[in-house]
Each structure stands twice: as structure tokens, then as C-alpha cells.
């Protein structure tokens, strides 16, 4: 489960560091302090999580918006 510790640390995660992962899926450590894996797709991310020896149930997955993601249209993108 996602903890308050994760939320606090994730909110403070350096944007410059996060920018290195634009357009990719990443896995944060359970405490939100580190990015432990990345992948272009969720499938690749899951493979990387296992490859680096992390417990898939102890990471938090997130998409890092890329430079082409200027405006999210929500359900409109389904049309």
C-alpha cells in the first residue's frame, strides 16, 4: 500500500532528476526516495524491476510525462 512516507518523499523528489525519465514508466522505491527501474512500457518496467532484484510489490509505478504531453484531454483522448 502507498504510504504517507512515500507521498511526502515523492512530493519532494527533485524535478531535475525526474526529468531524466521523461516519456517513460518508472518504479519508485516504497519510501519514494529513489527510482529503482524504468521502462518504455509497463512490461519493460516490470522486467527491469525483477532484473534489479526489487520486489514488485514494494515499488510504486508511475508514468513520467514527456515533452509531447502538454495537455491531457482526459476522456476526450478516448474519442
Amino acid at each position: 500500500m502507498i504510504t504517507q512516507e512515500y507521498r511526502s518523499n515523492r512530493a519532494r523528489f527533485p524535478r531535475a532528476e525526474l526529468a531524466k525519465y521523461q516519456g517513460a514508466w518508472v518504479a519508485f522505491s516504497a519510501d519514494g526516495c529513489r527510482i529503482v527501474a524504468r521502462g518504455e512500457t509497463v512490461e519493460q518496467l516490470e522486467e527491469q524491476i525483477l532484473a534489479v532484484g526489487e520486489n514488485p510489490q514494494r515499488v510504486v509505478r508511475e508514468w513520467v510525462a514527456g515533452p509531447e504531453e502538454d495537455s491531457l484531454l482526459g476522456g476526450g483522448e478516448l474519442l
Partner: protein
Amino acid sequence: MLRFPYLDEPLTGSAPPSLPAGAAVRWRPLVPVSIVGPGGLTWDFGRAVLDPAAEDTVFPLDTAGRIGARLHPNTGHRVRWRGQLYPLRFANVELLLTDNIGTWRWPAVVAFSPAPLRYPILGQSGCLQFMDASFLGAALIVELVTNRFFAGTET
């Protein structure tokens, strides 16, 4: 009630005219969500989008296998995502939302798709049908309260 402050996403270029000059981020109604398979395997996503315009709750297809979700027989349903059609497969799972004050967990039929989703989508079926949502545009907070259709647990 669960309360979630909107989460910021950095702008990668200049702010569009629809935002205040000099804005560096967008604020979106993104919430952390956990999806639980029938054997208890739990996958955490840090940012899922609460979207009242989305008719289904949709996760990346790969997630289904990872949590051991048993997909329903293929119903042939599809979704058009950014102009392209992708299949939707459905499964019974549990979803978990917490603001670290309260925690809700409920059974849901959700969709899985190979569409390249940016965020898991918490749409009407499987999620928002069970709660009443207030999007507080000035405070940049979303407030959720369960409604009479919620059949899960609140702790």
C-alpha cells in the same frame, strides 16, 4: 471522506495561454491507487487519473498477468485511444485507495488494455460509480465520499 490534493506535472516548455504566465506545472486530479489480484498480489501505481468522462477503469494489460487476475473470456470490446483501436479485457479485482487517513478497498470489474496509457484511468465503471467526487478547482483538491453502491470496506 478521502481527500487528495491534485498532483503537479512539470511543463516541459513554455506555459500555454490557458495557464498563468510563468506557470511551471500543471495540476491534475491524480491519485495513488493499488490493484489487488485474487491471490492478494498487489501492484501500486503512484498516479492514476480520476476521470468522470471515462466509462471504464482501465489498467495496462501487463498488470493483469502480474497480479494473477483471471481475465474474462474475450468479449470483443475495444477502446479507441488516440485514434487507434485496442482490445479491452476485463477481470474481477480489488482496488484500494488511501489518503493515509482513511482507506477504501472494494471489489471491481476493471478493464485491461495494451493501449499505451499514461496513467491508469479511474473511470465510471469500477471506481467512480461507487463514490461521489467533488473536484475543488480553486483548492486543487478532489474529495471522495462513498455512495450507496459502494460494497467494500472503509477503515
